[in-house]
């Protein structure tokens, strides 16, 4: 037991020893060393957050699209404010004395509401320009309790592509809660790629501990910067976007409502993504942001609405391509299959109208002339296929093909606000028609009308998949980060198969070629481009609220296509009137670098067309 008792004494010794060590250390910092008192007296340290510049954004050609500009937040520590010359201060800030008074009232209100602390710095006036900062800097020492914090704002090199970039705003309470990186007053991407690639673009904040004298002036780094952390600049990203094509698209869509989506079929890279009406991205930065945002959101044309990703339209006749492919794959029709058409298809008590063309037609010419009767028959054959036990089963099989083409679900493009569209299934019709429906009931799906709704992005992707003869890559706009491909998410490198055999694409693509180049008439002869084998299909989406929407999808060249495009122009009537020329001009511009002088008249006509005030169609 003796040894054990010794240990008890040793333990007591250890406790007393630690106590003594603590007392000695406390004595030394509290009594002997006066430097701590000195530090505290003048309260000399201030943590200045170092905000990193966001990463730059380039287009596929390496052109700089988005950079940064410096602005300055005027910070205040309310407790440290001492009486000063308000006129002088207002002048230095470039505002009136009344405005200055308003800022002070705001500060007092926030203090009362406990939103800010009187001991800690908070923002007094946001985002003062660097020009004004030059004037202020000289006088700042006169105004105790104020100091300046540098921040950066976005700077846009082109007035285009606002929907793609999205905008940046102060982080919300929810974001602060979800991501510990943010504190109140930080900025983050809220929409567009600024949001999607926020963590790549934002970099990393740093902190600098500086010494300040009694006047609040910075006197250099505390302990030679031992406690400083450097800000890390955000990483640069390159987009798959072609800014010149984007610019041209926005110009062609001027004074029209609609969308353009251009994709490189072999990779799924988005070349242009136009939402019209567009707005200048510079409107949504800095102090003018909130005013402009309000104006844009109240605009009746909804410029903030990102149409290519969010707007839903029926695909119209362009959808005949898909029905042809499904019919071939299911074996209910062949290339040689013929349907007679006399101004439409007439069943017992119902009919589907068509325009005049020669009859009967085989598959390729049926696309060339966009024959409604043909596709009513094809669609009915798909649904009434005897291989399936019921129309419901056949219908859901048809739906599976659509889903494999990327319809009905979000494609997974790198924007958070993508719409999934709407592809009905048999259960939907069971509900609508109380279980009593057949292939006649839903016949309008055969020609792309009815309940089916797609986004322009899904249309472009469908067109790319046809151009690829059976596969697609998920459309995306991120090309690389810091010139390295590794950061591109894996889902954009995965090939998606549509489930249609390659050979079935040949007659369909031939039809698309004839629609443009057919000597015996075609629906889109206006889209012809010299030396380029462009293939396309027009469409018209019925619009119950006004003039129909003009649709055109195309890809070029015929083999190994370099571009697939979908154009929607709202209230513009037939596909061939506006959508086809616009698509064709964009393809020509992209593949040839410019537009043939012969077609300048077409370009002019598109620039000048104003479809914003079309009078509603009367029935």
């Amino acid at each position: 037991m003796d040894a054990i008792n010794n240990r008890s004494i040793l333990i007591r010794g250890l406790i007393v020893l630690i106590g003594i060590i603590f007392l000695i250390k406390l004595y030394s910092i509290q009594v002997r060393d006066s430097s701590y008192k000195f530090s505290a007296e003048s309260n000399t340290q201030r943590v200045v957050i170092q905000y990193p510049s966001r990463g730059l954004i380039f287009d596929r050609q390496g052109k700089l699209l988005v950079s940064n500009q410096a602005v300055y937040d005027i910070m205040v520590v309310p407790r440290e404010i001492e009486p000063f010359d308000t006129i002088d201060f207002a002048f230095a800030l470039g505002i009136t004395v009344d405005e200055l008074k308003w800022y002070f009232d705001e500060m007092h209100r926030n203090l009362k509401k406990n939103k800010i602390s009187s001991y800690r710095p908070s923002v007094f006036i946001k985002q003062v320009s660097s020009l004004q900062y030059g004037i202020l800097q000289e006088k700042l020492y006169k105004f105790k309790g104020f100091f300046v914090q540098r921040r950066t704002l976005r700077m846009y090199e082109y007035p285009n592509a606002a929907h793609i970039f999205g905008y940046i705003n102060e982080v919300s309470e929810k974001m602060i809660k979800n991501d510990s990186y943010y504190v109140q007053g930080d900025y983050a991407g809220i929409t567009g790629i600024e949001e999607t690639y926020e963590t790549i673009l934002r970099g990393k904040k740093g902190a600098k501990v500086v010494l300040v004298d009694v006047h609040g002036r910075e006197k250099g780094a505390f302990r030679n910067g031992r406690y400083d952390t450097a800000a890390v600049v955000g990483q640069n990203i390159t987009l798959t976007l072609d800014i010149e094509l984007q610019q041209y698209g926005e110009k062609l869509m001027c004074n029209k409502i609609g969308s353009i989506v251009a994709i490189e079929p072999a990779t799924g890279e988005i070349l242009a993504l136009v939402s019209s009406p567009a707005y200048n991205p510079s409107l949504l930065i800095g102090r003018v942001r909130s005013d402009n945002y309000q104006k844009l959101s109240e605009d009746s044309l909804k410029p903030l609405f990102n149409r290519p990703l969010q707007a839903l339209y029926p695909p119209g006749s362009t959808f005949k391509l898909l029905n042809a492919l499904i019919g071939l794959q299911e074996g209910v029709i062949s290339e040689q299959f013929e349907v007679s058409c006399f101004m439409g298809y007439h069943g017992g008590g119902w009919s589907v109208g068509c325009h005049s063309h020669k009859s009967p037609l085989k598959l390729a010419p049926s696309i060339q002339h966009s024959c409604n009767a043909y596709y009513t028959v094809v669609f009915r054959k798909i649904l009434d296929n005897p291989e399936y036990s019921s129309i419901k089963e056949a219908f859901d099989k048809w739906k599976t093909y659509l889903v494999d083409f990327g319809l009905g679900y979000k494609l997974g493009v790198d924007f958070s606000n993508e719409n999934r569209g709407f592809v009905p299934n048999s259960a939907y019709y069971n509900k609508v028609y109380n279980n009593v429906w057949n292939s006649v009931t839903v016949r309008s799906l055969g020609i792309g009308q009815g309940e089916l709704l797609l986004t322009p992005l899904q249309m472009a992707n469908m067109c790319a998949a046809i151009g690829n003869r059976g596969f697609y890559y998920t459309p995306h706009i991120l090309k690389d980060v810091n010139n390295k491909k590794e950061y591109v998410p894996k889902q954009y490198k995965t090939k998606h198969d549509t489930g249609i055999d390659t050979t079935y694409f040949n007659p369909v693509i031939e039809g698309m070629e004839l629609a443009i180049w057919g000597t015996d008439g075609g629906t889109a002869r206006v889209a012809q481009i010299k030396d380029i084998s462009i293939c396309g299909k027009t469409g018209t989406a019925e619009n119950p609220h006004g003039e129909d929407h003009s649709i055109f999808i195309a890809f070029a060249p015929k083999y190994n296509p370099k571009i697939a495009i979908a154009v929607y122009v709202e209230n513009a009537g037939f596909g061939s009137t506006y959508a086809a020329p616009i698509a064709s001009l964009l393809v020509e511009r992209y593949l040839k670098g410019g537009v043939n002088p012969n077609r300048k008249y077409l370009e002019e006509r598109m620039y000048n067309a104003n479809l914003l005030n079309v009078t509603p169609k009367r029935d």
Partner: protein
Amino acid sequence: MRLYNTNIKNFDWIAVVLYSLLLIVGWTNLYAANFDPEIPVFFDTDKEYFKQLVWIGLSVVLIWLISLTDSKFFVEFAYIIFGFSLFLLLFVLFFGKEVNGAKAWLEIGPVRLQPAEITKFAVSLSVARAMSRFGFSFTKRFHVGKLLLIILIPILLIFLQNDTGSALVYFVFVFVFYREGLNPVIMVIGFITAVVTILTLLFSTITIVIILGACLVLFLLANKHANTLIKSVIIALIVFASLYLIKQYFNSSLSYIKIAFFTIASVTVFLIYQGFKLRAKSLFLGVGVLWLALSFSLTADYFFNNILSDYQLTRVQVLFGIKEDPLGAGYNVNQSKIAIGSGGVIGKGFLQGTQTKGNFVPEQSTDFIFCTVGEEWGFIGTSVVVLLFVLLLLRLIVLSERQHSDFSRIYGYSVIFIIFFHFVINIGMTIGLAPVIGIPLPLFSYGGSSLWGFTLLLFTFLKLDTNRAELIR
């Protein structure tokens, strides 16, 4: 025999007075840390000091409940309480709420509890019960295994909750084992292991080789092998110089690590030869420790660089203050030292602190509450607090040593070392003597779970003490 004693007056009054004094001083400082000079309202239910007052009231109820409990209950239910606390830890791991990166909280309505605080109590009871069984011995593998399980399972679970600070507390049971007769050699080995591990993080392998070499020199001197030492140094120099020349002139790919290795190897051969020649066992021991430490250092190095993920490595490094977290642990400690240092001898006075109120000090009402003491009450205040803790701990040792039953004594020492660990790390951290590990100062820091945890630990022991004359097992 029924050990039923409901009289609160039987609690050791010295310990109760010390507990109460710490609680009062602690709450006063919590009030000061929370006090907002712009809104001097006392009855603000949102304020931490107000909530803490409620917790203190509830602690009195807890003490009353403990006084009603039969002492034998703690022995009989030790393992059941342990099982229950493990269940809570597991539950929190899956369904808990994350606060400050640690998923260690249980949320029941408006109340947030930290089960890890109860686990300290449960582990103490279980360790005491396991060790007080008849025939317990540190030489029996089964017994040691049982003890290790009781301690390591909670450590693992709490570590998984990402609450590193709370997990470290359980290592203090080594001291309890020491008191109960564990061979001190094991503690020394453990100590060397810990030191070498930290050295590996701090320095490169070369530096550690040099440090170990210096240790060997001191060892040889201490054992009066001056002659051998001189010969060893000469051999080391010759081997090192020749290898160095080979590297320089023949442009060989010899790395410095290899050169150091050959040098040490040749000295080792010489020392073993000397050991046989002089029949000196101490030489073998010296060489053995040298090689063990060296190989452990290399293993630890490999472990840190190749097995731990970057994220885990950073966490360990931040813990030991080697790497600074984004906000800078060094910055925090410095602010804390300024706050304490600025108090001077007599302090700035109650509610007069500027540093703690200016939010310069982080976590001022939880981990850094000691800053408020230092700033407002000066050296006098800090000395009193340190003294109160030392007195409480010493009093608890006196109480532990007078226990008739092993169970009570072992439990008592567990309580002592748990409080001791919190005291050393928390105050040490605020004055820059210990790494920044986020654990509360007992009875001072804001938080109901922690207050309840310590009250439960302490008063259970005081209850056992009321039956010190009987044999409880």
